[in-house]
């Protein structure tokens, strides 16, 4: 067991965990931030996507100790109190989800896409979402939501 110091959603936290503990498990089981989902065992589905030092990564493919000292942002850290983040609001307005399982990962990825591309076109969004799988929506409304969310994030900034 070791003590791992993390900074999650702007808060300094400590986790007592084995060296093998994945970042996803530290977030979900130790910090009870269960918005970050686990959808596969092959690093392919992207439902575990969080930001580490400002970049979207798959938290199932990283050890918690690797993230020690890094700034981590999860889906729980996006909203401003009860006010949804513009990307969350866009997913709501454009029906970008059905069962919602993939949604936290989709939204974290979407915010990363906007951070890097500003207002991406549809083709860019489709290419950039390659690492996020959805079994329900057929992606169409997700793409619309990401484009609309990008517009709104631009207006806020």
């Amino acid at each position, binding site marked *: 067991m070791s003590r791992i110091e993390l900074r999650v959603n702007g808060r300094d936290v400590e986790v007592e965990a*084995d*060296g093998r503990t994945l970042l996803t498990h530290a977030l979900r089981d130790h910090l009870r931030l269960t918005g970050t989902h686990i959808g596969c065992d092959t690093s392919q589905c992207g439902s575990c996507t969080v930001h580490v030092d400002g970049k979207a*990564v798959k938290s199932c493919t990283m050890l918690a*100790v690797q993230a020690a000292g890094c700034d981590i942002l999860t889906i729980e850290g996006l909203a401003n109190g009860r006010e949804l983040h513009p990307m969350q609001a866009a997913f709501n307005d454009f029906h970008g989800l059905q069962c919602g399982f993939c949604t936290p990962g989709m939204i974290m990825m979407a915010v990363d896409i906007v951070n890097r591309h500003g207002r991406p076109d549809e083709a860019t969004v489709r290419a950039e979402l*390659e*690492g996020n799988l959805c079994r329900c929506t057929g992606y169409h409304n997700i793409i619309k939501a990401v484009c609309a969310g990008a517009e709104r994030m631009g207006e806020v900034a």
Partner: protein
Amino acid sequence: MYDLGYSRPATLAEALELLQQDDMAQPLSGGQTLMPVLRARLAAPSQLVDIARLDELRQIRPIDGGIEIGAGMTHAEVAAHPVVRAALTALAALAGGIGDAQIRHRGTIGGSIANNDPAACYPSAVLALGARVQTNLRILDAEAFFAGMFATALEPGEIVTAVRFPACAEACYLKFRNPASRFALVGVFAARLGSEHRIAITGGGNGVFRWHAAEQHLDRGADIDSLDAVPLDLANFTGDIHGSAEYRLHIAKVITRRALMQMAGQLT
């Protein structure tokens, strides 16, 4: 996943010492291959030595006639780097097409070539361009570095520190993606270095290799359309649930032709 130790040394010298003291220790770079392997209990290292943030492995710089890319540079960094984009556009494009955005944020060139997955993208560029692999001990030619699937010339405790590529304006990497994993079902890196054509094929199943007969055919001035008749040994290919050996061989020929046409500006 079995339990293991973890350390994040501050210098390359410290990292090498840790690896040399413990022959069950393993370097950890981006973890985008190693982590899935560990989760599946396919490896059981005693400890991981995190080399991803070592300054010594994290630069890209122009060198005489080319560029040197540090082993710890991520796929996203290579894809976006102005020096790579200018000197080796095809390599930047290759890096930008690996896996997906999240994988590219963490996976590194050093990890990719050290792993030498028979379907990985980078090894084809290293082999086709005749790049040289720098380790903490020596410099190896691409031909000497890769040693069949998942095998390289690296000794225990030896790590890749950088890869040196020659600049090359005429090059193109094309991959025929496995639609599920997005790895290459077959990928071809075609290049022209001076008057010499170079074609390296990945995804065949037995590890990256050069299609020498096609290279010689093109060096003699033959046109791209006549490549279909050039022999390509079926022994370079294996079959699996994604496609038979014959299918992979066929795709390799088609992709080679397309890559060459794109290189010649005949196809966009």
